């Protein structure tokens, strides 16, 4: 098992109380698995991803345990986590376009970063150059300033830099959200290639875009309002989802070739509950067309078939 997450609960401090961003998340990722983490905005997927590498000042680790390659990740302890960052857990952030400081050459940033982490730059440089060329960049990107690079080039540079030390777990946080469709595809393919070449053991790809996850992810984990809804192989999620939310999500996706006068595009009426004081029981209850009395009790996230976990009383029935 590459990554085990057990009852991970992370809240955000805010003026009006604690926002229960991630509540009782339990799942596992195998070596070599690319897991997509999907859900609408505010469902907690980004928070979950962030909590695995660096909690920002507002985040509080309430309970839960994270294990990577059999070793516990001290996610609540910022100082202790440092040993794991970059080496064992790494991140390609949402803001890759501005992730490199504008007043330093890319190569200088790479060198200073690596050396500050105790890695000799000269030893790593050949591999760095090789990987840059692999993603379609010339090695003289290192001599450039970020302003001289296009958005796509910066994105790829950051991907290479983040994975340079071959981390066990890579978190890709909404890295395709700002890109056009063909760039999305290119980036998606790069992620898969990194996994295939062994640069990264396993990956969590966070996005609201199910279409791209279908292309690149082995499994997909769907979150709703801070809770896990369903996890299954990508094919199953898209083809035979069991959780009502997932099903509505899939059916609300526009399909290529379908015209609007033939089929109406269904949405999901209503909006997600406030995470400041979420409702008891199943959080999707208010919007779910299948809700019944038992839903006032929170459904457990259980494995209904091998590799397919769902949190829903109806699905479990």
């Amino acid at each position, binding site marked *: 098992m590459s990554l085990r997450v057990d009852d991970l609960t992370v809240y955000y401090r*805010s003026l*009006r109380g604690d*926002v229960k961003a991630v509540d009782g998340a339990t799942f596992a990722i195998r070596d070599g698995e690319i897991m997509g983490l999907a859900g609408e905005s*505010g469902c907690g997927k980004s928070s979950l991803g962030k909590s695995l590498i660096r909690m920002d*000042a507002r985040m509080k680790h309430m309970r839960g345990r994270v294990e990577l390659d059999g070793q516990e990740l001290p996610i609540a302890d910022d100082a202790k986590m440092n040993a794991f960052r970059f080496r064992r857990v790494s991140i390609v952030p949402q803001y890759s376009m501005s992730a490199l400081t504008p007043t330093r050459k890319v190569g200088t940033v790479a060198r200073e970063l690596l050396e500050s982490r105790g890695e000799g730059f000269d030893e790593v440089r050949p591999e760095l150059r090789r990987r840059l060329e692999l993603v379609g960049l010339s090695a003289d990107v290192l001599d450039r300033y970020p302003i001289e690079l296009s958005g796509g080039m910066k994105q790829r540079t950051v991907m290479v830099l983040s994975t340079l030390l071959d981390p066990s777990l890579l978190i890709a946080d909404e890295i395709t959200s700002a890109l056009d469709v063909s760039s999305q595809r290119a980036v998606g393919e790069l992620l898969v290639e990194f996994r295939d070449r062994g640069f990264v053991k396993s990956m969590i790809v966070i996005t609201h875009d199910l279409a791209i996850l279908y292309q690149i992810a082995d499994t997909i984990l769907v979150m709703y309002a801070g809770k896990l809804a369903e996890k299954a192989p990508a094919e199953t999620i898209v083809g035979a989802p069991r959780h009502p939310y997932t099903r509505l999500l899939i059916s609300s996706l526009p399909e290529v070739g379908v015209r609007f006068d033939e089929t109406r595009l269904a949405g999901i009426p209503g909006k997600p509950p406030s995470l400041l004081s979420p409702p008891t029981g199943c959080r999707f209850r208010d919007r779910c067309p299948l809700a019944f009395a038992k839903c006032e009790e929170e459904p457990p996230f259980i494995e209904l078939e091998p590799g397919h976990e769902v949190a829903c009383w109806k699905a479990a029935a």
Partner: protein
Amino acid sequence: MPLTEPTQSGVALPAEAVADAARSGAQTAPAPGVPAAPRLHSELFYFAFRNWKFVLGSAVVLACVAIAIVGPWLTDHPPLAFDGPTDQPPSSEYWFGTTSYGQDVYSQFVHGLRAAFLVGGLGGGIAWVLGVGVGFTAGYRGGWIDDVLNMLTNVVLVIPTLAILIIVAAYLQVQSYTTEAVIIGLTSWPWAARAVRSQTFSLKTREFVEVARLSGRSTRQVIATELAPNMSSYLLMTFILLFGGAILIGASLDFLGLGPSESISLGLMMNNAFLASALLLGSWWWFLPPGLGIVAIVGGLYVMNVGLDEVFNPKLREL
């Protein structure tokens, strides 16, 4: 990014005006899952009155305003009357002592405070109107209008304000603080124009403005409902900084003897004291109060401003 103004010291706070990166807007992304918008104003008030800098700064400024208003009523010595004993230290009769010409320092001080507020408010106000007008128009309209206004701003910006004021005041023989305020206002607006322009630019390209425009709202409506509320914090802080800056410039002008000579101001008090060798005589009651008055008002304004910046710019808050 924090807003600041180049003042007599160099830069009081970072020169937002010239930084290329414009401010990202008053609010950062709220914590996920938290409903936004409706609570905005009450949240601001909550933070404003909990921010000790804002509270302290406002308290000091308001105290000075109170003294400026009430102070003159408490004395029956006109500020310029030579009817007292000369060079007296503070006493029960003359609370701040007397000058070398037998004038009541306390009376001069409180009347000087009034003049300071007049110059600051009017001078700062004029500079604010000009700066916001020019900056906003340049930022919003763009194109050649922006180029022209930009040129104008740069030209006025680079010319040292005091140099212009010296020339103008030397020739014009300013006789009232209103005139002085107007002159100051007309020459100290450029940095505000720059700041407002860059802020307008950054806001203009935000989605909500595009949406408003696309949904058919007129330019005026877009300005009033989308841009102005988001910039209001910025505009307020700009005014505060201009206010303080005008007082400082006015004090320098008066100290050089270029302000009105028929009335009294804090800068003129310092000028008189200095020329009468109060320094060597040790008449500290004469030259200390005017400077302290300025430090109090301007310092209070700056501290208020920083407090407001923290309220509007959550990144600077200490949670």
